[in-house]
């Protein structure tokens, strides 16, 4: 087991973390993603914004195959993910080990104490020993500021604390890229700040991240790049300052006005 942080970017500047090319996703007869192409570099922090229903979650969920695109090319750290055929269990496992995900609704396992939430996947998926898994879990809980909550049940924690546990749980699997789907949308603003602080810290240590968010300030400060989606397509992308101050499309301008006026 490697103890070095596999998320540090230096070794892997050559291969992009995630490559999407012409990804098309359909729910019934509704086309949710219309041939989306996007590349995330290793070590990059990308923020994705856009109006509700524009397909941000869908895009994120394609990357770890929670949704199955009907066509396109998907590569994660060089691993080609086949979309034209049923994926083998082994390939899927390989993919999901590389990709961690943090959900809007935390999705902790409520019947397990915080520590067990973090150790169980390590033991079952990475085959770590109980001791090893616990050591890693405690280290990560410290890192997200919850060293004293190891034995609490998720239901006893605030939303912000739950989300930080969820981040620790995802990190414990040593993923090479972390996906966040509106991690603070279910939280009171005050609690959201705790979570954003943890994410900021991760970004600073070079974790590769893709963050769907409505937190424009976070996007402006932390992200290397902002991607704007609308109606199943990428409207524009670029340097945060540039996108936020000088949006190229009328649709983006309208969206940004709506967000800023809130």
């Amino acid at each position, binding site marked *: 087991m490697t103890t070095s942080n596999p998320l540090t970017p230096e070794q892997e500047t050559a291969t992009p973390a995630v490559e999407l090319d012409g990804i098309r996703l359909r729910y019934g007869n509704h086309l949710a993603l219309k041939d989306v192409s996007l590349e995330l570099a290793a070590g990059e922090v990308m923020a994705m914004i856009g109006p509700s229903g524009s397909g941000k979650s869908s895009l994120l969920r394609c990357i*770890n195959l*929670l949704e199955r695109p009907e066509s396109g090319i998907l590569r994660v750290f060089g691993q080609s993910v086949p979309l034209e055929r049923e994926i083998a*269990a082994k390939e899927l*496992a390989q993919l*999901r*080990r590389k*990709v*961690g*995900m943090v*959900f809007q*609704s935390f*999705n*902790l*396992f*409520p*019947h397990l104490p915080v520590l067990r939430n973090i150790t*169980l*996947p390590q033991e*079952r*998926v990475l085959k770590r020993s109980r001791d090893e898994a616990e050591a890693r879990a405690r280290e990560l809980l410290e890192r997200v500021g919850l060293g004293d909550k190891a034995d609490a049940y998720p*239901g006893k924690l605030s939303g912000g604390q739950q989300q930080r546990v*969820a981040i620790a*749980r*995802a990190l414990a*699997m040593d993923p090479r890229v972390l996906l966040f789907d509106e991690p603070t949308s279910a939280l009171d603003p005050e609690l959201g700040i705790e979570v954003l602080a943890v994410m900021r810290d991760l970004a600073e240590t070079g974790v590769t991240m893709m963050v769907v968010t409505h937190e424009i300030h976070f996007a402006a400060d932390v992200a290397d790049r902002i991607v704007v989606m609308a109606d199943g397509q990428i409207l524009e992308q670029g340097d945060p300052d540039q996108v936020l101050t000088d949006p190229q499309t009328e649709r983006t301008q309208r969206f940004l006005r709506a967000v800023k006026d809130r």
Partner: protein
Amino acid sequence: MTEMLNMVGQWMPRLLDGLWLSLQVTGVSLVLGIAGGLALAVLALSRKRPVRILSTVVTEIGRGTPALVMLQFVYFGLPQTGIMLEGFAAAATALTLTTAAYTSEIIRAGLKSVPQGELEASSALGISRRDSLRFIIIPQGMRIAIPSLLGFSILMFQVSSLAFTIGLPELLSQAYSIGASNFRYLEVLTVAGLLYLAVTIPAGWFTRRVERKMSQHL
């Protein structure tokens, strides 16, 4: 009045023996039946359609067949196929089948109530379907099912009285044969009824308490 009490005192040892047997046959059927119900419920979640259909058909047949028919079928019918079971085994077999069918519905509802988001989280973490059943879905689903399973267990204890039709000397059987020997059916059957109540009513209180406790925890 004292004469009455004396009589009841004389009946009591046999009635209590019967009650003990009723509890035993119920207990065995519940343990085996709930295990079967869990198996059926898990099969009902299978990704293979034929497996799901099979589980549903077995469940529906088991639920649609009266427990009495099940008992008589096992005791009087099965010997024709070479399966010969004596009273206790036959009663336990029949009640196990009925329990499995009913509890599979209860447990399935429990398993299905585990939120979708947790299943997604477990997929995203790379946890296999088998592991997520074992560590996430079943522990939570079973816990949610507990109050209904307790309620069903009380019902099953009552249903065990039907085993008298296949000659199992459980509580009703004992009461009836005492009645047949002294023609005091009303008295002895009433005492038997009270003994059943002595189990079912406290068990009902307990179930409601558990239910309340659990709804507070959500």
